[in-house]
């Protein structure tokens, strides 16, 4: 009881997370991870569109590149690829 109570102006507004979740490697969850066959890819971007984890990096021109450090291996991109250019590899 030795510390005096702080006034309401000093109390922080709320808890503020300060680190980006980019630093948290959710890729460690995965059992399988995607691998793109670049010759089959038609660059439609559907793997990028349907990825729940923002894993694919795509500039709209080339082949999308998955960031395997964060990929949880759900396999949506494999199921939705129209040319079956993506396969799952056990990690």
């Amino acid at each position, binding site marked *: 009881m030795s510390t005096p109570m702080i006034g309401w102006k000093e109390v922080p507004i709320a808890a503020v997370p300060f*680190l980006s979740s980019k630093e948290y490697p959710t890729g460690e969850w995965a059992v399988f991870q995607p691998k793109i066959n670049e010759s089959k890819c038609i660059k439609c*971007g559907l793997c990028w569109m349907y990825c729940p984890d923002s894993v694919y990096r795509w500039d709209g021109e080339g082949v999308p590149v998955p960031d395997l450090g964060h990929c949880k291996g759900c396999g949506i991109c494999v199921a939705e690829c129209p040319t079956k250019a993506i396969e799952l590899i056990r990690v």
Partner: protein
Amino acid sequence: MATQSVWRPNIKELARRELKTRPVESGHRLCAGCGAGIIIRQIAMAARKSIVWINATGCVEVATTIFPYTSWNVPWAHNAFENAAAVASGVEAARKKLSRVGRFANDPDVELDYDIVVLGGDGGTYDIGIQSISGAFERRHKFMYVLYDNEAYMNTGIQRSGGTPFGARTTTTPVGKVIKGKPLFKKPIMDIIVAHQIPYAATISSAYWNDAIAKLRKGFEADGPAFIHAFSTCPLGWGSAPEDTVKIMRLAVETCVFPLYEVTNREYRLTGPSISIAKNPARKKPIEEYLKLQGRFRHMFKPENKWMIDKFQGWIDKQWEALLKRAGY
């Protein structure tokens, strides 16, 4: 039809913009194959200017902001279940006042020209938060409320909610001798929202991304409150395979479990694949195709529970007929 937008999403432009701004960062702890992860990205893609994100308690809230990490590169606030729409009302009212008195007129660091989006799950929308939504819609605050409907309280352990469909197994409506999953039907949330006579309300399924992003943009552009009902697969709670997430989202539309339509000032209009089903009823798939991919409906396929599938199909048909009548088919 004053608020009709002509904007059509271009996947390459969206990709370039996301690469530059990264509104939702990787590394959040949503389950593998979570449908909500796709929905939050599509909301950010549809933004026309900077957005302020108000998040009710739910899976997205607990998974994206586990202290000290955050996945958001947009201004974001967490709220309780019951006050998300009330907080959005406050943000909107404060902005109005601040721009009227010119408080930050000469401050280059403060931008008051933004859109407000509220994200709530089905528990926070159907059950706990409906009073604050109703109040905010009545006061005509300009924001977009997005309901991502995974049809139970998935975050706390798969308890049934007002959005849980008929026959679904949850931890509070288990399958046993007395009851076989939830004995009641889903609450007609869109009818409740449309009764508020808001300028824009729509249903989206992320599998039809073109349709979904165009509707989300219309919601941002609406002259007043907008409501978006998004269908979100939950591999954990539904007992579906993670890779089937988008397939289930598509099947829900094709079986008319979740028809796609928009309501502009109480005028119903079907969109996307629902139009082709309305014009050609043979394209409507039987509900079994949707049910068989999900573990929560597995008991319906036992011979003695065949009546459940028939009852569910009958209810879906009735809902679909009523919607067709409203949309003028």
